[in-house]
């Protein structure tokens, strides 16, 4: 049985921890709100972009841009891994890195080299630990404030590397924000650009049939060639936003659980404390009664 003093110290420590987790929860909540606003602000652009690109892609052929053509032999793959800079967000980063691990294993069995660009410290450390070559690292972006230029600069690098045949495919691993309670790791192929789906467009086309009759300047193919690299930036930016939002949501949930766990601990410790105190009082009373009896006699 722990002594009274020990239990008291433990309770104090747990209460302090609770204050910290609670504060971190609140910080994550407010950051999450900011990240969600950014996602909302990005949505109109992304939607319009996809719409225009979809209608263009229907008309243009594969020869419009080398970014559309799959390589016959894939020797090297570039993976952009988005993780957070900081921990304390439950399994968030582990989910992402284990997805990367699985993918890298699968590819290396086929004798394909895998290189990484890491967004976020956790992902970079993981690459280092596992000995994967790192093409570039970007810290202090995910989960913080960042602009579209980050995505366009590193997107440009990925596109250039692809065009220079440094690697034959580019993938991105990020965390999709589904709801406050659910964020799932996702993987997407960035390059070569997959045939752009026009599935969603079909329903829309009925309302806006003129979309197919755009006059294009300069030409359809040139326009498409100009838009495709941007399509990569847009996807990258979207993925970074999703990852940031997911990180904050994951941390919020983790910290909420931690706060609750602290409450539980304080409760059970208090019980132990009271029991020990009661035992102490009982023992003291026994002493007094015993002493009094002895004096009487």
């Amino acid at each position: 049985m722990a002594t009274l003093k020990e239990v008291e110290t433990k309770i104090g420590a747990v209460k302090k921890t609770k204050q910290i987790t609670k504060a971190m929860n609140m910080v994550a909540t407010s950051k999450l709100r900011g990240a969600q606003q950014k996602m909302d602000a990005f949505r109109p652009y992304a939607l319009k972009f996809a719409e225009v690109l979809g209608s263009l892609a229907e008309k243009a052929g594969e020869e419009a841009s080398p970014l559309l053509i799959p390589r016959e032999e894939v020797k090297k793959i570039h993976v952009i891994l988005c993780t957070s800079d900081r921990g304390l967000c439950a399994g968030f980063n582990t989910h992402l890195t284990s997805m990367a691990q699985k993918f890298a294993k699968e590819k290396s069995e086929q004798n394909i080299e895998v290189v990484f660009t890491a967004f976020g410290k956790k992902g970079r450390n993981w690459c280092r630990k596992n000995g994967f070559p790192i093409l570039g690292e970007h810290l202090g972006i995910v989960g913080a404030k960042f602009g579209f230029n980050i995505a366009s600069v590193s997107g440009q690098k990925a596109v250039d590397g692809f065009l220079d045949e440094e690697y034959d495919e580019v993938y991105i691993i990020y965390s999709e924000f589904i709801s406050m309670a659910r964020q799932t790791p996702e993987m997407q192929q960035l390059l070569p650009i997959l045939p752009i789906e026009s599935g969603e467009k079909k329903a829309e086309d009925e309302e806006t049939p003129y979309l197919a009759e755009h006059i294009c300047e300069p030409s359809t193919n040139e326009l498409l060639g100009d838009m495709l690299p941007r399509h990569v930036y847009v996807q990258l930016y979207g993925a970074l936003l999703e990852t940031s939002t997911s990180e904050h949501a994951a941390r919020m949930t983790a910290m909420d659980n931690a706060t609750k766990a602290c409450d539980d601990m304080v409760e059970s410790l208090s019980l132990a404390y009271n029991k020990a105190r009661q035992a102490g009082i009982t023992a003291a009373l026994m002493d007094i009664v015993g002493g009094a009896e002895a004096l009487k006699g």
Partner: protein
Amino acid sequence: MAGNIRLEVVTPEASVVSEDAQIVVAPGILGEFGVLIGHTPFLTTLKLGAIRYKTADGVEKQVFISSGFAEALPDKVTVLAESAERRRDIDVERVKQAIKRAQERLASKKPDINYERARAALARALHRLKLAETRR
């Protein structure tokens, strides 16, 4: 001219303009073009420059944009730009700093800088400044 055309300027970070306009003039890659209501569906890449438009009550306004593209429909013009700033939002001090920074970078002749980007940054900043200094 009957009616106004809707102008939307969106960037990945925010929707900058959403307003009815009598006329919109934008810097297309093959030359500046004007859009009135009832325009044929039209799609073009845009150059660095300013979009000028006249609001429904006749006020002339300008928005600085760096590369992007525009889609004109009979009742709507949508501009997708990587960055956009209304003229009154341009911070002259910041722009001047950006010019200085870009010039220093171009002059420094270090091997590790990206000339392409520095030059683009300088062009953007100079354009912004020009736009900000046309009558306020």
